[in-house]
């Protein structure tokens, strides 16, 4: 009971951190700032899935979903950065 309250407090703390990254993803001066803010938000989504699973005692179901999110983040980041490598700096 006490451990679940602690995990929920940490979960709401991470939720309060998200507007900083969202500001960087919306108001970044060029496209690389937006991409790195989006990467950080995706990392926080995986972390929040693991914390939800730990606070609801359903960790076995949510861990597979979080691993899938991580793989999608890796493949998407690699593809977009290989695409942007040959261009000029777009705004």
């Amino acid at each position, binding site marked *: 009971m*006490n*451990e679940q309250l*602690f*995990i929920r407090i*940490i979960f709401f*703390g*991470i939720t309060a*951190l998200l507007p*900083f*990254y969202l*500001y*960087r993803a919306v108001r970044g*001066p*060029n496209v*690389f*700032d937006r*991409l*790195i*803010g989006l*990467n*950080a938000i995706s*990392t*926080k989504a*995986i*972390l929040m899935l*693991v*914390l939800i699973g*730990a606070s609801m005692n359903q*960790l*076995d179901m949510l*861990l*597979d979903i*979080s*691993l899938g999110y*991580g793989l999608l*983040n*890796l493949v998407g*980041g*690699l593809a977009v*950065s*290989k695409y*942007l*490598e*040959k*261009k*000029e*700096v777009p705004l």
Partner: protein
Amino acid sequence: MILLSAPLILAGFFFLLIAAIGALRLPDFYTRSHALGVTDTLGTLLILTGVALLHGFRPETVKIFLIVLFFYFANPVITHVLFRAALRSGLKPWTAKKEQP
């Protein structure tokens, strides 16, 4: 187990807070990628290890350590590839203004 895992989770949250402040305050893409690539990875790994220790020794713990191992390689790779793409496409690094001699 909570005595062992609560300092890990609190230290991870502290590193995530530092990464968020660095993403908001630093002046350039390269410095921001330094803040978001290094500190964010460390905070995520600490929080995941703390949750795995809090959960006890069950079969799901192995899967949490698989996610930890995946993040230990995946997050610096994405940051490095973005950094290299920015450098090759000609983004100038931020430098301090030179003082008048």
